[in-house]
């Protein structure tokens, strides 16, 4: 828990944005560990594969592609907006914690609802199959969109 929250703060507050990316990877790894603790090993492995395997590498490559000294050390934000951000974040955190503690969820014992990947696979391939199809379309559309955006227009050799 400490690792997760601490790395999230590092991700946003590190001077160099590369260290921020590494902090984000640490935070995502902490969330994966919490998934393990919550009896969801399949989701945890998926999280490690997608977030830490793919997305952290993607972010690091983007940082290297657009790297420039001018914004690698970003301009300091105004102190007023920083204070406003801290107040907003703290207020939302306190509100959520109070709401979570105010429920009577504590009187329910956790039934051992450890769904295995077999159950997840059954659910995906039967009831949630339309969602899976739509998700596949969204993924391919986003990949095509990203490729189109980042296409380099080269001059035609004459």
């Amino acid at each position, binding site marked *: *828990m400490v690792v997760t929250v601490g790395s999230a703060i590092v991700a946003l507050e590190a001077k160099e944005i590369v260290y921020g990316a590494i902090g984000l990877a640490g*935070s995502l790894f902490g969330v994966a560990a919490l998934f393990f603790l919550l009896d969801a090993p399949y989701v945890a492995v998926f999280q490690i594969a997608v977030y830490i395997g793919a997305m952290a590498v993607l972010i690091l490559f983007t940082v290297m592609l657009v790297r420039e000294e001018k914004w690698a050390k970003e301009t300091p934000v105004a102190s007023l907006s920083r204070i406003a951000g801290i107040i907003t974040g703290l207020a939302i955190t306190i509100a*959520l914690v109070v709401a979570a503690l105010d429920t009577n969820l504590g009187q329910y014992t956790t039934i051992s609802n450890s*769904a295995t990947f077999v159950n997840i696979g059954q659910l995906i391939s039967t009831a949630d199959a339309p969602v899976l199809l739509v998700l596949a379309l969204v993924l391919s559309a986003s990949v095509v969109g990203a490729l189109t955006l*980042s296409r380099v227009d080269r001059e035609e050799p004459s």
Partner: protein
Amino acid sequence: MIVSAMLFGIGVYGLVTKRNALRLLFAVEIMINAANLNFVAFGQYLPFEGSAQTALPNASGQTFVLFSIALAAAEAAVILAIVVVAYRLHKDVDVSELKSLEG
């Protein structure tokens, strides 16, 4: 759930204060992870599916998180492509400097 609330608060703080497009992406990712954590945590409380003889564990929460992770990956890919294009056009990724987007 308290960890999730703290992560969400950190994400909101980042979203409010930062002006660098990549930092905004970090903040959004942290908030998405907070939501996913809540889904898995609450999924533990769901009742079993089916009758008493064929009781199956309820996997709805974890399945939803799998879909959510895939969507977040697609979103991050698009945002990173936009960042690269914005850098190529403006030599900057500060969102307050992108004047051409103003109405």
